[in-house]
């Protein structure tokens, strides 16, 4: 294989069978349980990278069930997300930790956008009258969320506003000598959102300490609300909004 051929075909590793295809990535019936809780402002300020600023004392714990997605198939996500303000004051959601149970979205998420993903065992399912989101790592439970199933409707415009808020990620990729090759803030968003349904209800969340999944270091002081949203959407490629190495 000639060097020109390598360069022309290079998209991801392994070269001859990349771990993920190139997008756009369309999700059908993506189901989200989002729990918003109040945490500690000083701790939030210490973990949100400047020039981002925490928008409030709020943190989101999101559990997502994906049944049908381009190239990534069927999988689950659990994420800890912090509402922040971008330089200029626009609202966005900064993903602090994310766990998935399939490899292509993990490799592609990390390498393309900079989603801070690890492999774990997130889940989202209806258990009789309760929508239950869990994150397990090995045999240990890291997060358990519960919400009454479809108690009250959530206004469509509120659900669409939540899904269309831009996301922001801290993408880091090392060089082969261990130094940082990439260290930048990436902005991304979902488009072509088609809402299937959205609900509110009583919600609860517990987080448990773990050496390699330290979600509990942003403690739950008070659960503010829970939302259950089902929608089709497209994950777009991102753009760099800040380069820490420049």
């Amino acid at each position, binding site marked *: 294989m000639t060097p020109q051929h390598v360069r022309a075909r290079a998209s991801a590793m392994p070269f001859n069978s990349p771990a993920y295809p190139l997008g756009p990535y369309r999700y059908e019936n993506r189901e989200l349980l989002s729990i918003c809780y109040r945490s500690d402002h000083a701790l939030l300020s210490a973990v949100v990278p400047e020039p981002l600023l925490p928008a409030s004392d709020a943190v989101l714990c999101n559990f997502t069930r994906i049944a049908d997605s381009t190239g990534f198939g069927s999988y689950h996500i659990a994420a800890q997300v912090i509402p922040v303000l971008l330089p200029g004051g626009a609202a966005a959601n900064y993903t602090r930790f994310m766990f998935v149970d399939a490899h292509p979205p993990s490799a592609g998420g990390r390498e393309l956008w900079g989603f801070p993903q690890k492999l774990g065992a997130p889940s989202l399912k209806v258990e009789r009258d309760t929508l239950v989101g869990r994150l397990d790592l090995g045999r240990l439970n890291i997060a358990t969320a519960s919400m009454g199933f479809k108690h009250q409707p959530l206004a469509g415009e509120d659900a669409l506003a939540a899904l269309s808020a831009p996301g922001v990620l*801290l993408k880091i*990729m090392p060089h082969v000598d261990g130094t940082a090759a990439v260290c930048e803030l990436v902005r991304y968003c979902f488009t072509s959102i088609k809402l299937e349904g959205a609900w509110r209800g009583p919600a609860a969340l517990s987080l448990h300490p773990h050496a390699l999944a330290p979600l509990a270091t942003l403690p739950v002081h008070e659960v503010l609300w829970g939302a259950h949203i089902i929608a089709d959407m497209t994950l777009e490629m991102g753009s760099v909004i800040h380069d820490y190495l420049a």
Partner: protein
Amino acid sequence: MKAQDVRERAFAMPLENPSYPPGPYRFVDREYLIITYRTDPTILRAMVPEPLEIIEPVVKYEFIRMPNSTGFGDYTESGQVVPVRFQGVEGGYVHAMYLDVDPPIAGGRELWGFPKKLANPSLRVEHDVLVGTLDFGPVRVATGTMGYKHTRLPDEKIRHALGEPGFLLKIIPHVDGSPRLCQLVRYHLSDIVVKGGWTGPAALELQPHALAPVASLPVLEVLSATHLIADITLDLGEVVHDYLA
């Protein structure tokens, strides 16, 4: 967090609790089953990137148990390595690897450019046979077998084989999908302590899979097999060719 702290702490994602620690990565009691086979030279040539040169139409199919490794823990790996020559020195080009745990997959891909995917490899002794398997989801894609410790190999021969350089095609995309890094990386194993090496009768079967295409380098004839146990350190690598330059 101050921007200066972000820059100083930036090693891997997530920033606050990276998926893998920085090396050096020491492996204790690393156990290999390596089955060397003859394949189709035309197919092999189409898969190995220049400026690496193919020595002969040969592939090494490997199953590796790593019970004790720095930061990566206890895991198993399986994959294909092609003997190559670069600037007159012989080594191995890592074509594809399949592992069962996240930190060495993320770290392997992002630091060195190991072409790794998540799957279910295994290597164990079953009575008188050393058995290596690779499953991708519920589908079996590779089965290797070797008679257990039939003939001892000299330690020096094992040490020499482990001391050869490895080569990787590291590709990392930009956030717009275009290639950000596209490099040929060379790495070495060091501080090699050989604990034993054997050869014996062996067989290998590869089955087709859309996302784990090990069978696309077909087994025409099994040439030899090696079972070895050693302690080694995986060193960081160096870029020896930049495809984007």
